């Protein structure tokens, strides 16, 4: 058992290590600060990490607020559209069209109304997070099993109660998928919006490093974004496992 664990550990590690080694060799041969290797990046991380963590804090708090606004607005809207079938069907192509509009394309417009401050960035992040949340919630609440609706009628639930106690829980697994997509796109757009509407945050930090030809500093920033993304994704996954245990239990017993 011990040896098996060791083996899978090495399996997981050899390729990244090999890539880092090749990169280091290439960097040493290029021998220019414009093409830093992993070692230089590590040095930059150790030098800059207090600054990076501070800037990352701005970015993450904006991403979090934008995501929360999107979730509070879009999950109820999605469930409502799933209930009001005709309205939902008519608006479906409009939602699809909105989904194909890339969030950065909205930046110039938001800039006109909200300037370049925190508010503008949060609006853009909320828009980016809203699309997957709305699409998944709508899709899930549209396809709630018909017998669940019969149960609601048999229990004499009002429309509101039915939405709250039947549609919402039934839609949760798909909403969770939407949440996962929305979280990653919120993070992505948070960084993008900072680079386009520069004030503070990790995106600005990376851009400044680049403008000063500190490529290794920029790579250090990217490494921290990647780490933050990794941690946030695993937190979302943990929550999902915790709150949706009933869904996974059923799915497992079926297969």
């Amino acid at each position: 058992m011990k040896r098996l664990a060791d083996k899978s550990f090495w399996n997981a590690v050899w390729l990244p290590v090999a890539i880092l080694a090749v990169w280091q060799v290439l960097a040493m041969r290029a021998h220019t600060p414009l093409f830093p290797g992993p070692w230089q990046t590590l040095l930059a991380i150790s030098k800059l990490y207090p600054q990076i963590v501070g800037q990352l804090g701005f970015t993450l708090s904006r991403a979090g607020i934008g995501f929360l606004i999107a979730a509070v607005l879009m999950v109820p809207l999605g469930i409502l559209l799933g209930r009001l079938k005709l309205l939902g069907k008519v608006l479906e192509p409009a939602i699809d069209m909105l989904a194909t509009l890339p969030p950065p394309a909205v930046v110039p417009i938001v800039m006109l109304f909200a300037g370049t401050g925190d508010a503008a960035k949060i609006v853009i992040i909320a828009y980016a997070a809203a699309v997957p949340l709305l699409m998944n919630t709508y899709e899930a609440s549209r396809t709630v099993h018909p017998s669940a609706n019969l149960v609601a009628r048999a229990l004499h639930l009002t429309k509101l109660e039915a939405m709250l106690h039947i549609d919402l829980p039934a839609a949760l697994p798909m909403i969770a998928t939407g949440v996962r997509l929305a979280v990653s796109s919120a993070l992505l757009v948070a960084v993008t919006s900072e680079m386009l509407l520069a004030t503070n945050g990790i995106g600005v930090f990376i851009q400044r490093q680049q403008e000063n030809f500190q490529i290794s500093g920029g790579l250090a920033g990217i490494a921290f974004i990647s780490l933050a993304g990794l941690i946030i994704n695993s937190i979302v996954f943990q929550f999902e496992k915790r709150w949706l245990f009933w869904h996974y239990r059923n799915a497992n017993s079926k297969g």
Partner: protein
Amino acid sequence: MALERWILRFRSLVSLALILAVWQGVAMLELGPRKYFPPIPDVAAGFWSMLLSGELLAGDSLTLGRALVGIVGSSLIGIGLALLGEMVPAFRSAFRPIAAIVQPIPPAALVPMAIFMLGLGFKLYAFVIILVTIWPPYLNGAAALAAVGDVEVKTGRMLGLSERDILFRIKLPAAWPEIFAGIRYAATISLIAVVVAEMLAGRDGLGFMLIRKAFATRIPEVYALMFVCAFNGVVLNALINLLRWRITGWHMRMTERTP
């Protein structure tokens, strides 16, 4: 009832008309300053003038072409890596941490670094798009290939197929629907990545035009460009759906028979 059926048949048009009507209504009520929220005819005029001057077609063909090349490249690489992982399990477990590390990196963060290493040309766009769009086809493909049922594989073995035949004639066809779901998601990201890269690299394409028109406060044209961006998504989706129908038509006929 007849009205409802009629609405549902033309729901795309109804939807578009609804958007335009709401837009026009908001613009005419002047809820926002007229300069920042122009009525539809102004936006159409902006679109028309850009179309006549030829800049729209030039910019959009660049953007769409980049997105298309990127999505084709990353789909092929993603599927290739997924197949490789299926043939060599050691590779799959070695590739997993790399996917986990690279996947959360936003394309915008890569652009400044990549400009230094690759310049402003086509290589920049290819690198950025492929690095961010490769994951959905790869992850979906790897999961779907691994999930092909034991029965199918054993049937293939019983029929005397070689391992290679089993991979290409049983596992890959079974995995196509999932792979296409990944490719469709990747198409959305690739459009985002192209526009972002154009905005930051700032030389040509729709993203560059958006930024330039916005700073020149030619607002109707900015809105027109936004409509074009959305339209690009529709075009790309239609292309992928066509391909999906050709390759996995059997599966779609089976699962989407219900109206």
